[in-house]
């Protein structure tokens, strides 16, 4: 064997203790890199499989398309699979559930994931395939080949027409959908029925299409194709929908790669600092040995090779071990997750591409190994350079060579050498390492904070607040153009407004009610916006803070709103539905009430953050005075003495049940929905943050331990000249405190600065109902607690370990 390799191998055996320490750092680095990548990949695979199992598979959707236009668009090279569908009619089962009858061609059915459980799809006449749950809810029995009579209202002449009855031949039963998840049941009818029921000039389809696979290198490109095609065919942007879930699940997402890249960089940084600090200390402690080798005739290049081989030798053993541990943990995690989540993953699993999962895991293993190798290489670059510079003289000089590369400059002496000076001195003499450690720990902390911001902004309570103002919310059931239910027309509801003073009194007197707030509404058409009805909400003076406190851009006083020529608009509604209205824009709205038509102009004075369940336009109630002197109260926000009181909820539901024009929602129900929606997201992020936290902790543990190990002798010297255990403890504690508070300061400052743009981004894209910005105090608290507890434990352990050894043994300590 080559002498250099033999020496490197012998060194590895001789310095077993130190190499085990480095090996642990390498093991953890490879484990973390593998775990982060594989957890990300597995989660992504499962999430994407779930999307592919349950979500529509179309990439783009254009609404309001004629059959001719559909054929034209279909001929475009960017359109692969395409299909059309149209909702023809519906049957109202209850206030919250209905059956929707649609015509859809085969491709559209495929892309909408409407599939048969039994039978076949309708082909002609009055054939129908429907969800058996729908028939059940309508009190009908259904079987393939049987007949069923159903009442339904056709969307015709821009209205929901009168209820008509029709007899259908059941050709198939659709796969049942959990009625608790969906608000409607699906029924599929034939094209003939569509043509029979809806005048041809009123038939506008939804055009669904997929872009050919070879034309989608990334989600961004797909989005551009869909939007550009719409422009090409003169389709209004409001009629364009991109199925970003499907795109993200199946194509490369540059943003995702960037996130993974940043996280891996943080792991490399943390790993490098950890390995580097152990290595560097080990090297300076062996300067004499290297000097002797040089004196014996070894060249600087050969010395460097030995150090490099020692390092890579550790990687060869520890990195695969870390990767294997990662695989074991991952498999165990998946088994546990699947046993917890039960059946719902079964269907999803069919869509998991196990071959690609295995291939990506082989890739991850290779990548984790390469990244760990790079980490080691980065870590030992400086020690290798240092070894290259060692002179033969250092072999024969006194052992103080350990430190002679650290302090060789003059500096101004102080007249008080107390504990804080010793701490300052130690940190200053290792300035680069101290800063690098704090920065690496802070980088992790900032990432934790940024991710926690998303978690805290997706607070289920906030989401529930977004969907229900008050613990219980009673609304009028207003509907337009429903021929069968004219009583739901706003003018009719208002003329017999159920929200009378007596009604309010009745509600207030229900046991457990603390407060009832009433909001007024008018329904308008707005010239500048798409045709349709827009609700403007009037907020009474006693609730004026509801508007004023939630303004985020622009300014207006409640008194100015009373004049009626100013409005406040919800920022999300403005962006999503109101064509990007902003402060300064003017709108003209028309409302029809008490037999008169009133047209008014108003300026958007400000935008704000309001519950998304509300209509989006806000003003003062008084501004409606010149529109109507009647009772315009449309929403009652009911605040209970507690968040949820079943007895009170039952009473309110009984009131709702009595009146077909009332709709009740409860905060609790919305909270439970939000909780289940955010659970998997939160679990994933928490695991992710836990892993990152581990890096953070590992780094700090190593920094503090190596700081003491390196100065064992120095500490012994100070104890020999009179440093007490208490002073030693204080010194270690203050040093730890510097790392803790330095890290916390940068984490909070950096995390605070970065978390707001992330929140804005999440809000803009409507991620998990992110609505209100919430500084992640929870994360700060958890990070602070972990760091402080860790410091206390570490200092206690280190000071105990120092004390365990007699002072004289430490003074003699020579590495």
């Amino acid at each position, binding site marked *: 064997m080559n002498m250099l390799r033999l020496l490197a191998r012998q060194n590895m055996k001789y310095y077993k203790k130190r190499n085990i320490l480095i090996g642990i750092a390498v093991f953890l680095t490879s484990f973390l890199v593998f775990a982060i990548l594989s957890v990300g990949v597995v989660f992504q695979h499962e999430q994407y499989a779930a999307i592919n199992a349950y979500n529509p598979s179309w990439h783009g959707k254009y609404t309001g398309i004629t059959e001719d236009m559909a054929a034209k668009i279909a001929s475009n090279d960017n359109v692969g699979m395409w299909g059309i569908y149209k909702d023809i009619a519906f049957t109202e089962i209850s206030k919250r559930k209905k059956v929707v009858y649609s015509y859809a061609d085969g491709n559209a059915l495929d892309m909408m994931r409407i599939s048969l459980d039994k039978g076949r799809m309708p082909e002609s006449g009055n054939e129908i395939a429907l969800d058996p749950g729908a028939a059940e809810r309508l009190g009908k029995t259904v079987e393939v080949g049987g007949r069923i009579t159903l009442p339904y209202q056709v969307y015709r002449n821009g209205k929901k027409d009168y209820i008509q009855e029709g007899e259908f031949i059941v050709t198939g039963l659709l796969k049942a959908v959990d009625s608790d998840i969906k608000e409607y049941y699906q029924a599929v009818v034939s094209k003939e029925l569509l043509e029979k029921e809806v005048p041809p000039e009123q038939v506008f389809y939804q055009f669904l299409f997929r872009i050919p696979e070879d034309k989608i290198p990334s989600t961004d490109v797909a989005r551009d194709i869909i939007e550009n095609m719409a422009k090409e065919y003169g389709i209004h942007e409001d009629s364009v929908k991109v199925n970003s879930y499907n795109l993200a699940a199946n194509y490369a997402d540059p943003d995702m790669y960037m996130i993974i890249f940043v996280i891996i960089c943080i792991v490399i940084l943390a790993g490098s600092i950890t390995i580097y600090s152990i290595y560097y200390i080990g090297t300076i402690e062996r300067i004499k040995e290297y000097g002797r080798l040089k004196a014996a005739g070894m060249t600087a290049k050969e010395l460097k090779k030995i150090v490099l081989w020692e390092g890579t030798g550790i990687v060869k053993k520890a990195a695969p071990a870390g990767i294997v541990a990662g695989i074991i943990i991952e498999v165990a995690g998946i088994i546990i997750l699947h046993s917890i989540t039960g059946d719902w993953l079964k269907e999803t699993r069919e869509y998991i591409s196990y071959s690609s999962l295995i291939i990506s895991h082989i890739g991850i293993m290779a990548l984790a190994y390469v990244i760990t190798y790079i980490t080691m290489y980065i870590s030992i670059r400086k020690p290798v350079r240092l070894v290259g510079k060692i002179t033969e003289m250092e072999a024969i000089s*006194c*052992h*103080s060579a350990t*430190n*002679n590369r*650290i*302090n*060789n*400059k*003059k*500096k*101004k*002496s*102080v*007249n*008080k*050498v*107390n504990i804080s*000076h*010793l701490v300052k*001195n*130690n940190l200053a*003499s290792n300035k680069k390492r101290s800063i690098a450690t704090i920065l690496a720990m802070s980088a992790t902390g900032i990432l934790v904070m940024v991710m926690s911001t998303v978690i805290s902004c997706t607070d289920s309570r906030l989401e529930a607040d977004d969907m229900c103002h008050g613990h219980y919310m009673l609304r009028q059931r207003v509907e337009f153009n429903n021929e069968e239910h004219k009583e739901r027309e706003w003018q009719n509801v208002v003329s017999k407004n159920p929200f009378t003073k007596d009604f309010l009194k009745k509600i207030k007197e229900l046991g457990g009610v603390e407060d009832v707030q009433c909001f007024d509404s008018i329904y308008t058409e707005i010239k500048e916006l798409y045709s349709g009805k827009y609700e403007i909400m009037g907020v009474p003076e006693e609730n004026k803070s509801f508007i004023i406190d939630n303004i985020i851009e622009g300014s207006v006083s409640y008194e100015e709103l009373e004049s009626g020529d100013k409005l406040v608009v919800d920022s999300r509604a403005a962006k999503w539905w109101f064509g990007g209205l902003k402060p300064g824009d003017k709108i003209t709205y028309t409302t029809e009430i008490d037999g008169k038509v009133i047209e008014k102009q108003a300026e958007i004075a400000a935008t704000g953050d309001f519950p998304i369940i509300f209509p989006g336009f806000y003003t003062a109630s008084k501004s409606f005075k010149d529109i109507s002197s009647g009772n315009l109260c449309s929403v009652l926000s009911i605040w209970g003495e507690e968040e949820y009181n079943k007895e009170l909820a039952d009473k309110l539901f009984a009131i709702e049940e009595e009146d077909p024009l009332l709709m009740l929602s409860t905060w609790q129900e919305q909270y439970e929905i939000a909780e289940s929606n955010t659970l998997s997201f939160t679990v994933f992020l928490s695991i992710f943050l836990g892993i990152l936290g581990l890096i953070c902790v590992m780094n700090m543990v190593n920094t503090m331990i190596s700081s003491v190990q390196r100065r064992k*002798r*120095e500490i*012994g*010297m*100070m*104890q*020999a*000249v*009179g*440093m*007490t*255990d*208490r*002073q030693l403890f204080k010194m270690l504690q203050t040093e730890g405190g510097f790392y803790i508070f330095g890290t916390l300061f940068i984490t909070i400052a950096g995390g605070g600065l970065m978390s707001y743009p992330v929140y804005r981004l999440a809000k803009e894209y409507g991620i998990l109902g992110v609505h209100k910005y919430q500084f992640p105090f929870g994360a700060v608290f958890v990070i602070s607690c972990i760091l402080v507890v860790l410091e206390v434990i570490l200092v206690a352990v280190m000071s105990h370990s120092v*004390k365990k050894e*007699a*002072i*004289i043994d430490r*003074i003699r300590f020579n590495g």
Partner: protein
Amino acid sequence: METVVKAEDLVKHYGAGGNITKAVDHVNLEIKRGKFTAIMGRSGSGKSTLLHLLGGLDRPGSGKVYIEGQDISKFNSNELAKFRREKIGFIFQDYNLVPSLTVWENIILPLGLSNIVTDVNKITNLLDKTGLSDKKDAMPDTLSGGQKQRCAIARALATEPAIILADEPTGNLDSQTEAGIMGLLKQSVEEYNQTLVMITHDEGIAHMADIIYFIEDGKVVDKE
């Protein structure tokens, strides 16, 4: 003459089972105030261990060490540390300076640990005496061996301790520097009426002492 250091049946063994090294084996000795006591012996005879036990740097297996009448083997580590910085000055062969502190800061370190305000004039005098005036702000690693040892002596003298324990302070130095260091030590001890206990191999140095203890296999075998 007053006994300032007294060892009573002092024992320190290392190892276990059949592999026990008796570093200090039932040693009894007395050291008188203001005297220069040398401890001589071959390498591995246990002289350094004995010095460390006398100075409270190490704990005996059994036996007692009295300093100025106080049994330091009863002290806990905090009490021992405080006692050391008040009563004992150490000088080591390897100097044991704190590498991240300047010469001046190394000297005033025991004062700082005791929360004693530095008497700048006194320490400047000490620097002058040790010939380190021009090295006040220098870092230890830039000093020669002799300068480092002078710095260590200055540190040992800074708190004006009653006892100076020196473990072969000239072991790493050339003969000229050795003479200078010894001169400095003797002068300081005489000036402050301190007790100097020194381990040495060097017979020449040992003969400067008032009393010489000879150690062999952890036992005091002779006294001159």
